[in-house]
């Protein structure tokens, strides 16, 4: 294996992988060194990406082009990002930080509006319709699903949704001794909902474990490949 950039990057990758894996023995300075380095590198990389892929192509470059061409009418829209850019920079000074609230208010307002609209049109309504469609035999036939399967899936889905929502209903009466007492049907539904929630969390945990296991396997495979390549065994 020749001394190349791949060797250097591979060696650094090997080193930091070992440092991260050292967390198995607990929090230690080696792990902290690796974490600090990753955080620093990630921050620098993020700053570079933001400048070269956001500010430069979408703010500075258009401005330069407008100044070069003299077509200031096209640059009218650039006034808004420039103002927002200037206002955000006011956060540097505590006395002028209030000016940055204008830009922040704009961003938060626009983001909230976009999020709510997207959630309404992209999640809530489609999911409600999808829950109902589970009981539509025509759709099941279109998907090549039998009626029993559709009925079974729809029933499980309906029970799971109802019981899960019932679990998060925290209304209760107060017993003579002061302790809360749920309404009996709600208490029963919530108990069933706990099962669905448990299963869901178990599935998510399995997925997390599977993802982490895949990442660890990839890292171990990298280490083995690097060592075998370094030792000339491959």
């Amino acid at each position, binding site marked *: 294996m020749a001394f190349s950039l791949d060797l250097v990057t591979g060696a650094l990758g090997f080193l930091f992988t070992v440092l991260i894996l050292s967390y198995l023995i607990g929090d230690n300075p080696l792990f902290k060194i690796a974490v600090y380095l990753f955080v620093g590198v990630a921050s620098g990389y993020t700053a570079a990406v933001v400048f070269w892929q*956001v500010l430069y192509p979408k703010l500075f470059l258009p401005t330069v082009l407008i100044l070069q061409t003299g077509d200031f009418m096209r640059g009218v829209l650039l006034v808004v990002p420039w103002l927002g850019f200037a206002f955000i920079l006011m956060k540097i000074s505590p006395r002028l930080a209030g000016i940055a609230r204008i830009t922040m208010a704009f961003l938060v307002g626009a983001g909230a509006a976009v999020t709510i609209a997207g959630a309404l049109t992209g999640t809530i309504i489609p999911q409600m319709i999808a829950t109902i469609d589970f009981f539509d035999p025509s759709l099941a036939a279109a998907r090549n699903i039998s009626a029993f399967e559709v009925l079974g899936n729809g029933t499980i889905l309906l029970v799971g949704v109802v019981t899960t929502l019932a679990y998060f209903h925290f209304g209760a009466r107060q017993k003579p001794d002061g302790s809360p007492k749920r309404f009996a049907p709600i208490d029963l539904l919530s108990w069933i909902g706990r099962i669905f929630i448990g299963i869901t969390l178990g599935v998510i945990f399995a997925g997390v474990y599977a993802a982490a296991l895949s990442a660890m396997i990839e890292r171990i495979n990298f280490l083995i490949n690097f060592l075998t390549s370094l030792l000339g065994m491959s």
Partner: protein
Amino acid sequence: MGANDMMDMVKCPLCGTMNPPTQKICQGCQTPLSGESFQPGQAPVKKDTGELEPILPQWLRDARETAKESGLGERYQQSEPNQSAASSSDLLAGLQSQAKSDDEEEVPDWLANITGAPKQKQKPEEPEEFTGVRWVETGHRDDFEQEDEVPSWLAGMQTPSTGADEKDELTEWFQESGAGKDSFKSPFQQIGNSIPSSSQPKPDDTTPEWLKQMAAEAGEKKTESESIDWFSQIPAESPAGSKDQSQEPSVPALGSDSSDWLSKLQADVNTDAQEEAPESSEFPVDTPDWLRNLGGVSSGEPSPFIESAPDEPEPLIPEPGIPSWLASEESKKSDSTPVWLQEKGGTESDVPAWVSQDSASTADSQAQQDNLESPVEDIFSDLPEWLKSAAPESSIFDEPAKPVETPSVGAAGPTAQPDFETTPAFTDGGIPSDADGLFTEMPDWLSNALETPVTPGASEPGTGSDALASNVLPSWVEAMRPMDQAIPGSSSLMSDQTFEQRGALAGLQGVLPAGLGFAPTSKPKTYSNKLSVNDEQLKHAEIFEQVLAAETAPERLVTERQIGASRGLRWAISAILIGVILTVTFLGTRFLSVPIGVPNELRFTMAVAQAIPENAPVLVVMDYDASRAGEMEAASAPLFDNLMLLKHPRLTFIASNEPGAILAERFIAGPLAVHNYQNGVTYLNLGYLAGAQVGIRAFAENPMFAAPMEITGQPAWALPPLQDVKSLDQFALIVLITDDADAARSWIEQTETARGVVPIVAISSAQAAPMIQPYYDSGQVAGIISGLYGGAIVERQYNNGRPGLARNYWDAYSLGMLLALVFTLGGGFVQLGLGLRDRTASRGEK
């Protein structure tokens, strides 16, 4: 109580109660004993009274000027550094001395006697400063009573001068002065005593002529110096007449510049001083000559004052800093009686009657005092109140032990003591021929007293027509009249000059006088602080204490034992898992088969992918972290390998997170490197799309505006990968590669309306697949490839094992999942067994 103690006692100006020197408030009437302000009628204190000089009578001013011109002023000024009384025979010397800083000694005694105000500041701790003069001023009655040395006439004057008992002594004194007794020189003697002099002024310069004339008329011999004759005789006679001089006040020495009558008085005193053993006391250095002459001795000569113990005369050694007129008293530590009051019976002929009453009559003084109590009150009935209180109890103004009806009786008593109250102050023959010219400059009250014909037999005080009435006092005397004494009941208010130290009245003085009626009249009642409780109350108190103790007692909190993984168990699981994966990966085994069954979401994904046209634009969204690159590449590589191999799509990568752009390059250059895709030709990287959901929404609405540039800064939408693509719905397929369910949801939600019928497939991490599954069930997502499991299935079922990455991980992944299952189930069973054991044990205990 010794004589010194009695000297230290301070007399209350209001009620006459003797108070200890440390007492600031009278024990009898709660009247402050000392004030710090100067008010009309109050005795001059240590204040700058230079402002009073303009209001002095003309005759006094002239006298002062005369004294200054004759050099007396210089001598007086030279003597001031000694801090003496700085007084000469000049009556105004005391006023001049008031401009000095010394508070105590600058107050003329004669003025203090007249006003009756207490000394502003006394120093009982320094016995050197106590003299017989002070004793006379303060009028310590007890001194005379205890020592039985008080003459009968003084005994009669020891009645408290309070209330209606006080008499107009000044009026009587003037009346008596008109009686014309030869030996009556007490007023001047007192003046001479009250005006000490530290220097030796010449009598010709300072003594008024009228005083000389009066002395000449009295027929007294003059001293060899300029001392007043009759006044000089007093010290000489007093020692001879005194039996116990230690108990009698000594007279201050007179200056050499005293008048003739004073000198004569001194000569008389010296005569008696030769007869008895002189005092061993020493005069201070600054004792003036007139004082030494008064005692019949000079510096270095035996003192004319006789102490009780020593017989050898001692020279007068003045002490620096002590007034000369006080030094004489200082020499006699325990003697508080003036020398002029210590005369004996053998010298009555040359001594004024009031002086001739000595201690020889003290044996009879008590009886005489008892008999003369009431007559004295009658005699002083005409005196103003302020004069009664001003005059010391034992001063010369006090009524002798004689009946009022016979004040002119001369030597009363078996000892033939001169009856001083019958002795006129001025005789007819004593007034010089040029007295008119002298009296033109004298105050009215004094002129009237001299002009009044003196009748020896008409010595009844306050009744003769020649007596000076109190209401005709000169204005300057009236100004010094103590108003608090004239107004009964207000004395305490006026004398209460308490200087407020704190509060809203800080800095003010005398604004809250203590009235007589406000003083505590009786001892406050005392109440017992012992509680009287019964047994029941004690029981209740005990219960209450127990309740309080229970409330404040710390209560132990029952906390559940924190359940944590055992370090050894954790290390064991880690070792097993890592060892198995490391071994399998290192060995590269492939003994575990890939699943054969294909899930529906994966099947639909492959169907959609294989349905796109040839060389169709495909949008690839990269939204996963670098840590998930291994999983995501293994999951997505089979699909893209299949597409690139079969459909040769034009790939356009865009990232909704920062590392997505670089991960896209890694993905192309890594698992898909075999396809040799070129940036800008067969694929395009638009880079990072900022703004999260807003950016995604903007890109969905107008991709050319949201992402105009590719990662290298070239205009993206003119490049071959995006040829004929102007909007989102013009892409043939949208592939979402993400490990975050929220990112997948954002892309699904925000592109819901913009993408139209363009299918979107999700290649997700195993951890995000369950959250994306509902979008597949709802039809919003065409298909899902979930993690390494989905990639392995696609690789095996749809791609003929290419690129083989998932398969390389599959054995380790399968064993890892199996171990996880084992550990999870094993742990569950262990916990179940422990729970059953505990429950069984608890049941057994019950």
